[in-house]
């Protein structure tokens, strides 16, 4: 069963996001899906591309809001709309460039970076859910130790801090051993 009750104003949404409540983003996603996707579809995007861009836009929005970087001077919908427009313009530019250049002209630098990210990704996966959450909430969402403790049900901020420290040491160790087995500079 699925009932959706769609009444939450911008201020409430922002408050929830600042507390790290992802449901607020789900809500926004559904609420403005049609508008954003239509905009991109009308500008020569497929539905898949439109969806992808809209999701990226929401992640940008989430990150800005959750880290407290966002000062909202317009409605959320207007703001999201402009992020979508910018992202879509960039994507169109990129596609145009690609059509003139070699498609496989990816630099070694990019390649190295991607490979490193993939290794880190794998190591994070091995750490388990709690570590992944603690670390991503800290680095991506920039949540305070208090908020992380609340969200993950730890006793207090100190517990979260200790956990974060241990997880990070463990991750560094794992990544270091894998990095050393891959030569990134040939």
């Amino acid at each position, binding site marked *: 069963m699925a009932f959706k009750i769609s009444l939450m104003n911008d201020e409430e949404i922002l408050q929830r996001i600042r507390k790290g409540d992802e449901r607020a983003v789900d809500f926004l996603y559904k609420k403005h899906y049609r508008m954003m996707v239509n905009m991109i579809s009308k500008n020569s995007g497929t539905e898949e591309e439109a969806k992808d861009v809209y999701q990226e836009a929401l992640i940008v929005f989430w990150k800005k809001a959750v880290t407290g970087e966002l000062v909202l001077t317009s*409605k959320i919908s207007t703001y999201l709309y402009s992020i979508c427009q910018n992202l879509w313009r960039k994507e169109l530019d990129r596609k145009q460039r690609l059509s003139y250049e070699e498609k496989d002209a990816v630099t070694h630098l990019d390649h190295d970076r991607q490979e490193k*990210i993939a290794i880190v990704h794998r190591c994070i996966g091995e750490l388990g859910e709690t570590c992944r959450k603690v670390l991503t909430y800290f680095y991506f969402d920039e949540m305070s130790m208090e908020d992380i403790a609340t969200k993950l049900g730890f006793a207090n901020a100190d517990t979260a801090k200790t956990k974060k420290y241990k997880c990070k040491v463990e991750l560094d160790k794992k990544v270091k051993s894998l990095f050393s087995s891959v030569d990134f500079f040939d």
Partner: protein
Amino acid sequence: MAENLNPFDTIEAYLRGKLDSNELDKFEQQLNADPNLKNEVEFQQSIQDGLLEVRRLELKQRLNSIKIEPAFEWTIGKIAAGVAMVGLIGLGASYLLKSEDKPVIVAVHHQQVANPVVETEKIKTIAVEPILEKETTIVKVTPKKAKKVLMAKSTTEELAHSVDFQAPVIPMEHGFHHVEKYDEGKTPNGKIEQVGAINISSLTVDVEKSMDKFHYKYFSDKLILVGDFSKGPYELIELNKNQEKNLYLYYDGSFYELHYGTESMDHLVKITQRKLQNELLFKIKK
């Protein structure tokens, strides 16, 4: 800030852009002079990039899993003293609502409660049929049908009389009324953008039949219950206290706490706190 930091913390603060301009200058000088430090910073940069990417993908996956249903939205306004009831469903149900300061129960019906009669106007009930299916289907229950379901479950006549049924359309009308009243602006495509101070919840409940012990997942707008819920209807109770909403499950004489954010299967743990039990029991009896 950097004065008190160990190198580990300083590198971290540097990469997260948390150093002030003095600290930054100082750190960059060290960085240029010390190749080991530079290597370590590059290493840490990779790790942070990886962490950012992992979280980005996680959020993306989350959004990707949201189904966009064409124009099926229930809009519920702040309904006077409290709660609305919402329709009912093949699978078990739930529901939510908001009242400004009082604890609120939603979706209450249980034949095993000593006096399961809903007496106040604040609480309306839904019959919850414990049909156990994996598929999520949406079934609109007409008042007539709902009554039938409940009567079948009830052992007393009073129960049937006292229960107040509403078709799903009723809350929706409230919603529209409310929206008109509080609308403060329109989105670019003319949809309703802002409404008064109304809290929302939306929850999808799936029940997976299993003879295992009770388990659950509760995240996003989804609650998944696993176990044998065939002994009778279960109930979801939302307590709205101190600006916090907590969700509880009542089944077969026991209450269980449902922690939001439980993304992997977790055991349903019985509530043993006497005070909370009483509070929940009180809500149910009400």
